[in-house]
C-alpha cells in the first residue's frame, strides 16, 4: 500500500513538472510575440513565430490554463493575462521570460539571448555572446550562444560573419540552427552555403519536420522578393534536390 502511495506521488510530481514545462513553453511563445510586437521589423524567425504561431499560441495557452484548472492547479497569472488580449496591454517580454524561468530554470537564458539578439541591443550583446562561445563549458547553452551570435550578426547585416557563425553553430547538430542557416543562405543567394545546410536534410523524421517548417517561410520570402523586384535566388538552388527537399522545391515552384 505504501509502495502504491509512493508511486502515485512520483507520477503526480512528474505530471506537475510536465504541466509546468508546458506553461514555460507557452510563456516563451508569448514573450516572442510580445517582443516582436515591440521590435518591428523583427527578423524572419520571429516573424515566423508570429505567422504560424498566433492562433496556435492562443490555443496552447488556453489549453494550459484549462488543463491546469481541471487538475486543480493554477496556471501562471502572466499566461492568463495574455489570454485576455486584446483588451489588456501585453506584459513586457522580460516579465514573461522571468515567469518562464520560474518553471524551467535555465530555459530563460535561451530567451534572453534570442530577445537580445533581435532587439536594438543586439550589437552590444554580441560581445557578451562571443565571450560565452569561448568560455561556455556546457551544452546545450554553448550551442545557443553560437546560435544567438549568428542571429545577431545576421541582424547587423554582416552576412559573411553570420554565415560563418551559422557554420560553427550548425556543427551542434540542432535542426533549428540548420534551418535558420539555410534560410539566410537562400535569402542572400549563397549557393554554396545553401547546399551545405539545406542539402544535409536527410529525410529522417525530425529533419523532415524541419523542412516542412521552412517551406511557408521561404514561400513568403519569395513572394516579397517578387513584389520588391529583387533578384530571385533562382531555381538552380533547388535542382537535384535530396528527396527531403522535393516538397520545398514544389512549394516554391
Amino acid at each position, binding site marked *: 500500500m505504501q509502495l502504491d502511495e509512493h508511486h502515485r506521488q*512520483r507520477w503526480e510530481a*512528474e505530471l506537475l513538472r510536465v504541466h509546468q514545462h508546458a506553461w514555460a513553453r507557452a510563456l516563451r511563445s508569448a514573450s516572442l510575440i510580445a517582443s516582436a510586437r515591440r521590435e518591428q521589423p523583427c527578423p524572419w524567425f520571429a516573424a515566423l513565430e508570429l505567422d504560424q504561431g498566433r492562433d496556435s499560441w492562443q490555443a496552447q495557452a488556453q489549453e494550459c490554463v484549462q488543463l491546469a484548472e481541471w487538475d486543480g492547479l493554477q496556471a501562471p497569472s502572466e499566461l492568463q493575462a495574455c489570454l485576455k488580449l486584446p483588451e489588456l496591454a501585453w506584459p513586457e517580454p522580460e516579465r514573461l521570460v522571468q515567469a518562464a524561468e520560474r518553471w524551467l530554470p535555465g530555459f530563460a537564458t535561451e530567451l534572453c539571448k534570442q530577445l537580445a539578439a533581435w532587439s536594438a541591443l543586439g550589437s552590444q550583446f554580441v560581445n557578451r555572446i562571443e565571450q560565452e562561445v569561448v568560455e561556455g563549458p556546457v551544452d546545450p547553452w554553448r550551442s545557443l550562444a553560437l546560435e544567438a551570435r549568428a542571429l545577431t550578426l545576421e541582424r547587423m547585416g554582416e552576412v559573411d560573419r553570420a554565415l560563418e557563425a551559422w557554420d560553427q553553430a550548425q556543427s551542434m*547538430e540542432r535542426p533549428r540552427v540548420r534551418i535558420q542557416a539555410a534560410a539566410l543562405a537562400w535569402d542572400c543567394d549563397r549557393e554554396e552555403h545553401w547546399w551545405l545546410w539545406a542539402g544535409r536534410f536527410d529525410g*529522417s523524421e525530425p529533419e523532415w519536420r524541419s523542412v516542412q517548417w521552412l517551406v511557408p517561410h521561404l514561400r513568403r520570402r519569395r513572394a516579397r522578393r517578387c513584389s520588391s523586384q529583387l533578384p530571385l535566388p533562382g531555381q538552380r538552388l533547388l535542382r537535384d534536390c535530396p528527396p527531403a527537399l522535393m516538397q520545398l522545391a514544389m512549394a516554391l515552384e
Partner: protein
Amino acid sequence: MEPVPELQLAPVSTRWQDWFRSRSPREILSRIAPGDPLRLRPRIGAFLEQRALLLEADAMQLRALALVARAAVRYRGQPELDLWLLDRIREAAEELIEDPQRSTAEASAFELLGRPLGLDPQGLRRATERFNRLPELDRQAFFGLVLRGKALESMSKEHNECATELARRARTVLLLFLEHAAGQGRLETSHATG
C-alpha cells in the same frame, strides 16, 4: 543482450477510450500508470534501441506517462494509438535529452552501471548526455559495434556506410566515454587510495 519484448498491442488499441475518458490529466494518469496497461515500457525499450539512445528507462517511462496523460485529453483516435504513443515517447526522449538534469529516476542507472566497472557515475552521466546529442549515425555505430558487438561488415551493409567510417565514428564515441567516465573514475580512485 536481452531481447526487446514483443508488443501485444491489440487490447491496448481497443481500450484507450476507457482510460482516456476524463478531462483531468491527473485522473487519466491514475488509470494508465499502475500496471502499465499502454505497455509503454516495452515501447520505450524498442524506441531507445532503434534510435541508439542511452536514457534511463525509468525516467523515460515516468515522463512519457505524464505526457500521455496530459495529451490524452485531446486525443480522438487519430493518428493510430501506436503512432500517437510513439510521438509521446519521442517527446519524452527529446525533453530528457534537452534537459537531462530534470530526470527524476530514483535508482540511477549510472550508479548501478558505473560503480562496479570502476567508472565515475557522474562522468558517465555527462558522457551519455553528450552521446545522446551526437548525430544518429555516430550513436548507431557505437551501439552496434561497441555495445552490441555486431560485425563491422554487417553494420556497414545495414547503414550503407563505409566500414572504415563507421569504425572511426564508433572510436570517437568510445573516446568520449573514456575521457569522461574512465578518466575521472581513475582520478577518483587515485584520490580515494592516495
